[in-house]
C-alpha cells in the first residue's frame, strides 16, 4: 500500500513559510520558462509556415536580403529560361512573381507610438503573386490596380498604428503618396503577415524605381527545388536562389542566437530551483525523522517512503508551476505579448505575438515535475534510509 496522497498534501502545508518561499522560487523560474518557450514557439511557428519547400526566393547575387537586392527587368527576364517552374493552369504562364520590397516607418501600438518600426512594403502583381505565395489568403478585397490602395498582413495590422481599414498610409520616396488600406490578409502565421502589399507598378512609380527587388517562383509539384536553384545560381543566370525556409532561417539568425543564450540562462535558473526544492525537502525529512520511523514500523516499505517524498516535492513544484504559468499569463495579458524583430540584414521588421498555449504550459509543468523530482531524490533517499529503531529511541 502506498502512502495516501492526502498525507503528503497536508504535509506541504505544515510549514507555510518554507512552502510559500519554495513555491515562489519555482514560480519565478516557470514563469520565465513559459515566456521563453512562448517566444521560441512564435518564432518557430513563423519559420515552420515559411517552409513551403516549393517556393523559391531569388535575389541579386551578393545581396543578403530582399531589402538590399535589386533585380533589373533584364535580369528578371532570364528567369523565364528556368525549367521545372510551375505554370498557371489557365494562361500557361510560368509562376514567377516579380516583387519590390521597400519599407515604411510606422509607430508601434504597444508603446503608444513612442517608437517606430520599419515595416516591409511589398509591391506585387496580383495575377502572379497569389499563385506563387499560396499560403496568402485574402480577408476582404484585394487592392485595385488602378487606385492607390494596399492590403495589410494581420500581424502588421495588430501591432502597428494607422493600418485600420480605410486608413491612409503615406508611402513613396518623399512619403507623399497616400495609399488607402482596403483589406487584410493572412499567411498561415508566416513572416508575410508582417508586411503591407500593394500593386507593383504603382509602388515602383511611387518610389521611382526601375528595378524589382526580388522574385518569388513556384516549383512544379513533381520537380526537385534543388535542381531549380542550381539552374538559377548557374553560369547562365547568376542570381542567388533560396527556398523560403532557408531564406528566413538566415534572416532570423540573430534572434535564434538570443534564444539559445536566454534558454541557457533559464537552465541555470532551473538548477537554482532544484537546489531550493532540495533544501526544503531535506529540512522536511530532517524534521520528520520520527514520523518516518513510525511509518516504517507500521509496515510502509522503503520504496514507498522514497516515492512518497518525491511525490511530495512534485506536489510542491506543481503548485509553484501553476502559479508561475498564471504569472506568465498575467504578464502577457497586462504588460504585452507583442514583439518585433529586425531581420539580420534586411532592416525590416517581423512581428510576433507570444502566446502561452496549453502545450507550452504542459511542457513548462513537465519541466517543473522534473525539477521537483530531482530536488527530492537525495532527501527522499535519506528518508527511506531512516533506521526505524534507533530513530524512535533517540526521540
Amino acid at each position, binding site marked *: 500500500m502506498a502512502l495516501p496522497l492526502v498525507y503528503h498534501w497536508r504535509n506541504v502545508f505544515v510549514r507555510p513559510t518554507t512552502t510559500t518561499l519554495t513555491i515562489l*522560487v519555482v514560480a519565478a523560474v516557470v514563469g520565465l520558462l513559459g515566456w521563453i518557450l512562448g517566444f521560441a514557439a512564435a518564432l518557430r511557428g513563423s519559420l515552420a509556415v515559411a517552409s513551403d519547400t516549393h517556393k523559391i526566393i531569388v535575389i541579386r547575387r*551578393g545581396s543578403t536580403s530582399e531589402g538590399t537586392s535589386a533585380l533589373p527587368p533584364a535580369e528578371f527576364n532570364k528567369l523565364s529560361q528556368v525549367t521545372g517552374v510551375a505554370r498557371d493552369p489557365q494562361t500557361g504562364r510560368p509562376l514567377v512573381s516579380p516583387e519590390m520590397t521597400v519599407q515604411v516607418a510606422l509607430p508601434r501600438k504597444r508603446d503608444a507610438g513612442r*517608437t517606430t518600426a520599419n515595416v516591409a512594403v511589398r509591391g506585387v502583381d496580383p495575377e502572379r503573386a497569389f499563385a506563387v505565395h499560396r499560403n496568402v489568403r485574402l480577408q476582404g478585397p484585394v487592392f485595385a490596380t488602378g487606385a492607390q490602395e494596399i492590403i495589410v498582413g494581420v500581424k502588421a495590422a495588430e501591432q502597428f498604428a494607422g493600418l485600420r481599414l480605410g486608413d491612409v498610409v503615406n508611402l513613396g520616396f*518623399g*512619403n507623399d503618396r497616400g495609399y488607402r488600406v482596403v483589406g487584410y490578409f493572412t499567411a498561415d502565421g508566416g513572416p508575410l503577415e508582417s508586411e503591407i502589399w500593394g500593386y507593383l507598378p504603382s509602388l515602383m512609380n511611387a518610389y521611382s524605381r526601375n528595378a524589382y527587388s526580388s522574385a518569388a517562383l513556384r516549383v512544379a509539384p513533381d520537380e526537385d527545388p534543388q535542381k531549380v536553384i542550381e539552374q538559377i545560381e548557374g553560369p547562365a543566370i547568376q542570381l542567388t536562389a533560396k527556398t523560403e525556409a532557408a531564406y528566413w532561417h538566415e534572416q532570423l539568425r540573430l534572434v535564434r542566437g538570443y534564444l539559445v543564450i536566454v534558454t541557457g540562462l533559464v537552465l541555470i535558473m532551473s538548477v537554482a530551483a532544484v537546489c*531550493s526544492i532540495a533544501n526544503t525537502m531535506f529540512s522536511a525529512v530532517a524534521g520528520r525523522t520520527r514520523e518516518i520511523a513510525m511509518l516504517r514500523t507500521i509496515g510502509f516499505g522503503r520504496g514507498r517512503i522514497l516515492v512518497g517524498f518525491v511525490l511530495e516535492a512534485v506536489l510542491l513544484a506543481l503548485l509553484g508551476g501553476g502559479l508561475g504559468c498564471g504569472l506568465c499569463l498575467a504578464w502577457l495579458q497586462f504588460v504585452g505579448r507583442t514583439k518585433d524583430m529586425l531581420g539580420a540584414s534586411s532592416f525590416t521588421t517581423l512581428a510576433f505575438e507570444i502566446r502561452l498555449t496549453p502545450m507550452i504550459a504542459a511542457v513548462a509543468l513537465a519541466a517543473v515535475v522534473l525539477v521537483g523530482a530531482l530536488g527530492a531524490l537525495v532527501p527522499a533517499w535519506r528518508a527511506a534510509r531512516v533506521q526505524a529503531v534507533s530513530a524512535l529511541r533517540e526521540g
Partner: protein
Amino acid sequence: MLILSYLHRNIWRNPLRVLMTGLAVGLPITIFVLSVAVVDGINRFLDNSARQLRLAITHKSSIVYPLPAGYRGKIEALDHSRPITVCAMRWIGGKVEDKPQPLSTLAADPDTFPATFPEYLTDPAERAAWERDRQAIVVGRGTAAQFGWRVGDRITIRASVPPYSAIPFHVVSTAQDVVDPVTLFCRGDYLEEEIKRQGYPEGLVSFFFAKCRSSDDLEFYRTAIDAHFANTPDPTLTQDEKAFMSQFIAQQFDLPRNLTILSALTVVVAIIAAANTMSMNFRDRLAEYAALKALGFGRALVFALIQFESLAICVSAGALGALGPWYAFTYTPLRRFTVPLIQSLDVRLAVCAQAVGIAAAVGLIAAAWPVWLAARLRPVVAFRALE
C-alpha cells in the same frame, strides 16, 4: 573570540544546506552579472557615442533611402562661423565569400574620415596608409579577430548592395582602441570607382556624419541642417550619434529592457531562496536562541548571529557567482564568445562588485523575517513549544 567560533560553526552545522543555498543564491547572481554586463556594454557604447559631438544625417523618410553626395558641401557652407567636418558614408554591408556572417562595411570620404572619427587611425603610419592606399580598409577589432585579419592582409568583400561585386581591400588598421568593434570603413572614392565600373548610379550616400566643435554648434546644426533641406526632394533627419545608434538597439530584441527585467527577477529568486534557508535555520535552532536569551544574552547577539550567517552565506555565494563569469570571459576561450551588437562581452570587475553588493543586500533581506521573530522571541513560550 568565542563568538567568532560560534558563528563559524553555525554556518557549517548543515553543510548540505549551505551548499544548496549557496547554489540557489550564487547561480542567480551569475545570471545577474551576465545580464548586467551586456547592458553595461551597450550603455558604454551609447555613452561613447554621446560624447563624440557627432551628428548623423539620414534621409527623412527612411535610413535606406540615399541622399545626394552634394549635400556635404551645402552643409559645410551653412555657417562659416561654425566650422563642421562632414563625412559621407555609403553602406555596403558585405560578406566574405562562403561565410554566413554579414558584415557592416561603410565607405567613407577619405579626406574627412580621420577628422570626423578621430578615435580611428591614431597611429601615424596607419593614417598615412589610409591616405596613400585607395584600397585601404579599417576593420573593427572584433571582426578582425573573428576572421583572423591583421594589418597588411589583403581581403575580399562582396558588397550586399550595388555594386554587388567582390572588392579587394588592404587592411590598414584593426582599430584596437575603438569602442565599436564591428564596423569596417573603406574609402568612398575607391567604392565610387567600382560603382562606376559596374554601371550603377553614382553620387549617392547612405548618410552623413558631421563632427561639431562644441555642443553649442551641435545644437545649432541639429535643427539648421533639417531646416535647410526641408523643401527639397530629399529632406533630411539629423540626430545626434547616440539617438541614431539607439534606434538599432531598440530593434534588437529590446535587449537592455529585457535583460534588466531578467536580472531583477534573478535577484528576487536569490532573496526568496536565501530567506527560505534562514527561516529553516531559525526553526531548527529555536531552542538554542531561547536558551541564549534565558541565559541573559540580549537581542543584539541573537540578531547578530542570524544576520551574520545570512550575510556570510550570501556574500560568499554571490562573490563566487560573480567571479565565475568574470574569470570565464576574461581568461578562458569564452572570451571569444560574441554578443550581437557589442561583439565581445566584457565582464568588468565593477559589475562584479555591484553584484556582490546585491548579494549582501540579498543576505540582509533574507534574514529580516527570522531576525524579527528572534527579537520578539520569549524564552518561556519557546521552551514550552518544544516537545
